[in-house]
């Protein structure tokens, strides 16, 4: 299968972009930073080609469906959205330093995906729905935004600590980071992108469940965990407008929120069971 070859190449490219972003932070060389961004972009281009090729190949096999329906495909799509959302945020807010914390995600996710079965399989009837695409796409772009916010929130915590101990920042990577206010703001802005998307993702999922099974909410573990993630980010949003919860506590909630997101996505399948088709690695 040629799509796997392209996916394999993208893993390598993502690996190099991660190395470059970390070196950029370590050596603080602008040109390294530029190369890091271009490498990540190259990874995205290769992966985009791979995804479309897989889509095309599924049609050649007579199955014909968007590549979004099993664990492998969802991991691949997740890596792709994290990289794209990060590139957009980096460009918009000029925070290349967050790259060292975000660029490992596409690499690790792709490397993990390469360990899961990747044949193109036909869809069981319940998954043959247009709601599937809107549900999966909105959820995953939301998750990707949360991943970026997670990286930025980490930076925020480092930076705030450094700011309270003045004088020691110069010459370390901490001095190179944007101010804690900017990091707080970017952390919030990315969640402000992710939260509505997750909301739409949960609603389209509920709508689809209602069409397919006649219940929009059945408290299955996947649904419940997506609600948990949603509640944590709702708490984050209100924490940020509360005196005394702004800053540190909000950043912690963003980190907790993304940990819950990862659990919702992978932990539920690997540890808990449910209706969802990504179940196990079968």
């Amino acid at each position, binding site marked *: 299968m040629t799509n796997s070859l392209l996916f394999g190449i993208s893993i390598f490219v993502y690996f190099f972009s991660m190395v470059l972003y970390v070196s950029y932070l370590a050596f603080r060389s602008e040109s390294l930073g530029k190369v890091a961004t271009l490498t990540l972009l190259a990874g995205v281009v290769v992966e985009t080609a791979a995804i479309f090729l897989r889509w095309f190949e599924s049609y050649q096999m007579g199955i014909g469906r968007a590549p979004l329906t099993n664990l492998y495909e969802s991991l691949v799509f997740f890596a792709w959205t994290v990289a794209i959302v990060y590139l957009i945020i980096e460009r918009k807010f000029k925070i290349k330093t967050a790259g060292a914390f975000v660029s490992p995600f596409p690499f690790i996710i792709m490397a993990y995906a390469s360990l899961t079965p990747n044949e193109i399989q*036909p869809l*069981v*009837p*319940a998954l*043959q*729905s247009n*709601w599937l695409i809107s549900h999966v796409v909105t959820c995953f772009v939301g998750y990707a935004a949360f991943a970026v916010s997670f990286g930025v929130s980490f930076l925020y915590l480092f930076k705030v600590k450094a700011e309270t101990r003045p004088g020691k920042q110069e010459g370390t990577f901490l001095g190179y980071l944007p101010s804690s206010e900017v990091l707080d*703001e970017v952390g919030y802005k990315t969640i*402000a992108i992710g*939260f*509505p998307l997750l*909301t*739409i993702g949960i*609603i389209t999922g*509920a*709508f*689809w469940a*209602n*069409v*397919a*099974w*006649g*219940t*929009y*909410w059945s*408290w299955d*573990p996947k649904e*419940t*965990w997506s*609600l*948990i993630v949603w*509640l*944590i980010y*709702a*708490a984050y949003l*209100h*924490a940020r*407008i*509360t005196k*005394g*919860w702004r800053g540190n506590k909000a950043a912690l909630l963003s980190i907790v929120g993304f940990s*819950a997101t990862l659990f919702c996505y992978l932990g*539920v399948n690997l540890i*808990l069971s449910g209706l969802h088709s990504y179940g196990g690695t079968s």
Partner: protein
Amino acid sequence: MPEDNKVKQKQTDVIDKIWGIFISLRLVVILLLVLSVLSIVGTVIEQNKPPQEYYHLFRPETVELLAKLGLLDMYHSWWFTSCLALLALNIIACTMERYPLIMKGLRKPNTVLDEKLEAGLKDSAKIRYSLPSETVEKRITAIAGKTFSGAPVVTDTESGRHFFYEKGKYTRLSFFLTHLSILIIFGGAITGSLLGFKGYVNINEGETISAVKVRQGQNTDLNFSLQCNSFNVDYYDNGAPKDYRSDLSVIRNGKEVIRKTIRVNDPLSYEGITFYQSSFGSIPETVTLEIRGRDGGSLGNVVAPVGRQVDIPRSDVKIEVADYREHFHMQDGSEAGTVVGVNIYRPGTAPEGVWLFEAHPDMNRHGEYSFVVKNIQLKKYTGLQVTKDPGVWMVWTGSVLLVAGIMMAFFMSHKKFWIRMEKDRKGRVEVTAGGTTNKNKHAFAAEVAGLIQSFREVSK
């Protein structure tokens, strides 16, 4: 102060304090986090399983304790429901508290840029022009009109001519949308659970039903009948089902009112009741058995309709087909293929129930007879999930409002912008401009700076 008043004072203090807690964002944050932790518990302890599964997992005392605490059906427990109710009260209190403030934001604003207003504006500037005032007015209103679509409110006072622009006034309502929509969703869920039902029914191909089994095990009569005209399945090459569909007719007073082929993801609705394709299967209609005597010689075939006793030839023994399994598992877990469960009635003794194996006739000797399963005539049935949920439209309405409200809250704001034109002592045109917004002030400051820059360039 008289004693009486003091008591009253104290009471209002307490009420104020409780109110203060209810509208505090701290409570919201804590409540949302408590709800998420409780929900986690509900996914770790699997909910609503058959009791034997819990006894398999935990010690009996533990199961009883969990059941008593409501942890085996916690999403319906009093304490989980109370947390949701508390959240609802919290939202109502917050909405009441913010109502006047939001309404104030919607009231007709000051359309005149007077000194007091000017002093309060952060992003404002003064520009002098040596152009005729008509030219200046034409050019700068053209620029401002591009950013704030729509005509300005123009007011002439003795201090000069004032232009007022406004955009996104109604986005101030986003608070109501985001928060009240959650109450609407709750309302929909409550309506559905009080007035709706969830049920299940199997219909054999060609047959008609007029009642369904609901969760609690009792039957609910429908006001109409539902007929399954036919049922079909397509398979992929690997044997997985690709598509299954039932051709259904709704029949009322003997007449067909709707006919539709339903499939997974494409249900049929009639009078608020929806039928979802959920499962399928087949059950035997008649089974043909060859009966052999002690010596192995054939005594002939019998055709046994399911559930009816038929005579074994040349004897007073009767046999009845009562059960059927497509994939039968032996005690050691191995699969033995298709089996038919029969009861053998010998005069004067209790009936004997045995399994007859289609693939292993050698295992089918029972007393003086042995049996060969010759043919099983199957009939297909379709399994339908049946739901009535009169609250579901509220859930979707609330959902749409929620998304709209969140989008508005995050990506839109109420912007106000004023321009004042006057003549200074030397007779030059002096323009003062500035604006305010309720959200995302950094971005707005940049926008205003851009506008003012364009105003400056007018005289070039």
